[in-house]
């Protein structure tokens, strides 16, 4: 995981430097959170219960990895939840109306369609130069609208699915559900892509300093396009996982989930300004948010306070991020380099 991390802090046993690393901070925060929950509801921290929390958070983890790639390139993908709704609805409709189609083909369809939807976002950003937030705000509505057109607003319900469609993510391999294994596999994939491939490194380069990236021969538009493809691919997979997990497909599936995904990235230390972030951070951010989501119901917090708590944590995380960035940005980018940067991006 160290390969995926931004430039390492100098080695040493300085406690402040140790805590300054976002991953460590998150691990500590997560442990503290679990400890607090345990005082009010001890059985929450049993291995079985924690396994359940991880399983519940799997979809968020997978999608946070895709979003992290996009955010690294100074972009944002608001259409991920709509992508889940559309791919989920598509595979649900195929499964309900053609029960003979093998599951492997359905999963491939989900991946393919998700990739296509991501590529549409990426192409619009790359070729037409429209700001990512505008593009994905548009496609968010389009994708959800298409899910409505496909289904006519009708629900696909649990009894309409084939048994395999619903049971595979629940099946246990070595005591852990396939859904959790999928998240593990996605993390492994992301570690390789982010840290060991040219594409992954180009995301960091483009987000960190677009001008320098262009001088280094990196096509910023192409890197961004591929980040959107990666996000779309993972969202498509989650479309199937979501529908199978909740055994229902309807237009409003995962409504508002894109904000959770972005929040997970932000909490995990992926900088909205691009260039900073790690796979470990995104995963821990997702786990932190997932743990809160699972813990709040059992510690019996009022639903109004729940929203306020989630919001406060996101603000705190962003505050930490901006502090980290300020130190870095002021020193390196000040002498004249930060001014022409936007112009270079526009080209």
């Amino acid at each position: 995981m160290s390969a995926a991390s931004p430039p390492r802090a100098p080695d040493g046993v300085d406690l402040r430097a140790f805590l300054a690393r976002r991953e460590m901070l998150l691990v500590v925060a997560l442990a503290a959170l679990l400890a607090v929950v345990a005082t009010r509801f001890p059985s929450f921290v049993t291995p079985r219960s924690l396994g359940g929390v991880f399983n519940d958070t799997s979809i968020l983890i997978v999608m946070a990895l895709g979003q992290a790639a996009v955010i690294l390139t100074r972009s944002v993908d608001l259409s991920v939840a709509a992508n889940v709704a559309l791919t989920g609805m598509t595979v649900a409709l195929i499964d309900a109306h053609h029960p003979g189609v093998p599951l492997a083909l359905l999963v491939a369809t989900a991946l393919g369609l998700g990739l296509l939807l991501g590529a549409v976002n990426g192409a619009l950003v790359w070729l037409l130069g429209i700001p990512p937030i505008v593009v994905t705000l548009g496609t968010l509505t389009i994708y959800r609208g298409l899910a409505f057109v496909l289904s006519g607003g009708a629900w696909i319900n649990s009894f309409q699915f084939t048994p395999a469609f619903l049971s595979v993510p629940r099946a246990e391999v070595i005591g852990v559900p396939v859904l959790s294994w999928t998240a593990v596999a996605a993390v492994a994939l992301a570690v390789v892509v982010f840290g060991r491939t040219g594409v992954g490194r180009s995301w960091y380069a483009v987000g960190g300093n677009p001008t320098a990236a262009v001088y280094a021969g990196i096509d910023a538009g192409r890197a961004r396009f591929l980040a959107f493809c990666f996000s779309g691919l993972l969202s498509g997979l989650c479309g199937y996982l979501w529908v199978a997990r909740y055994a229902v497909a309807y237009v409003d599936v995962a409504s508002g989930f894109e904000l959770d995904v972005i929040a997970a990235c932000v909490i995990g230390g992926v900088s909205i300004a691009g260039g900073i972030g790690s796979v470990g951070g995104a995963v821990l951010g997702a786990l932190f948010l997932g743990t809160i989501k699972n813990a709040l119901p059992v510690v019996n917090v009022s639903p109004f306070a729940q929203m306020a708590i989630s919001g406060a944590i996101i603000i705190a995380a962003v505050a930490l991020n901006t502090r980290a960035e300020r130190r870095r940005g002021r020193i390196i980018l000040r002498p004249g380099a930060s001014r022409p940067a936007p112009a270079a991006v526009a080209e």
Partner: protein
Amino acid sequence: MTRLRTLALSAALAGTTALAGAFAGASAARAAEVKIALVAKSLGNGFFEAADKGAEEAAKQIGDVKIVYTGPTTTTAEGQIEVVNSLISQKVDAIAISANDKDALVPVLKRAMARGIKVVSWDSAVSSEGRMAHLNPSSNALIGNMLDKLAADALPDGKGKIAILSATATSTNQNTWIAEMKKGLPKYPGLDLVATVYGDDLSDKSYRETQGLLQTHPDVKVIVAPTSVGIVAAAQAVKDAGKVGQVFVTGLGLPSEMAGAVHSGATKSFAIWNPIDLGYSATYLAYDLVKGEKAAPGAELSLGRMGKVKLDDGDEGAMADPFVYDSSNVDKFAKVF
């Protein structure tokens, strides 16, 4: 522009119906048949097709009633206004409408009433000046009581802890029903309500809240979800937790969405209004008015096999308890809505 078109259209309609009227007039005089129009929000919707079935049943039972089932192709008030205009020129005796807009239909329905047509709304109401009576599928008190009854029925001897999974904490419908439910609890001394949680009508949050309930209150035997998203998610969460048979999910849901939960055993029974009964009752109510009964606060009107309906101060009445679905009838209704 649209106004002109509507004018031209109604003129054309009036022309054709004048011809039709010449024929109809002759036959009407002969049989004195009561023509009741059942106006749907839109055609091709299973819920309203089912209501039409009920209306036909009522017509058959009464004998001298002919049902004109109609509606626009899309759920728009404009479409319904055109439909009502054509019904006025067809000289129907009564119009029973489920309105797409509470206010937009008032002028045209007023015009219908001015021509002596009896107008009632059902399912979705028209403002009080645009109709003589409104038939609600149920009332808040009846729904609250039904939720208590469903919870008690799911327990072997009507005794045990129950919890509520609602929509959002601010949702008016659900909060009213839950308040009515709590009011009715003393009638079921075996029921012990231990928690109310909110799934925000999101399947993932509802699922998670149900998991939380199962952990914090392992002795809860029934989860009552008066929301169609929540009840489906809760049933799935109970099934996934392997608690089918120990914890039952009930509440308000649609048969097509709940058939799977009933088959898996996570749900024994649940309730929602029955569209067939609703169409039947709306027809009866319209027929009562055609036969000279007065719709006034306090009036009791016959709904045939559904008993009587008593109108409140706003000339509104509640048909009946929500209809209960279980393994014996869920598949039949799952095809309808």
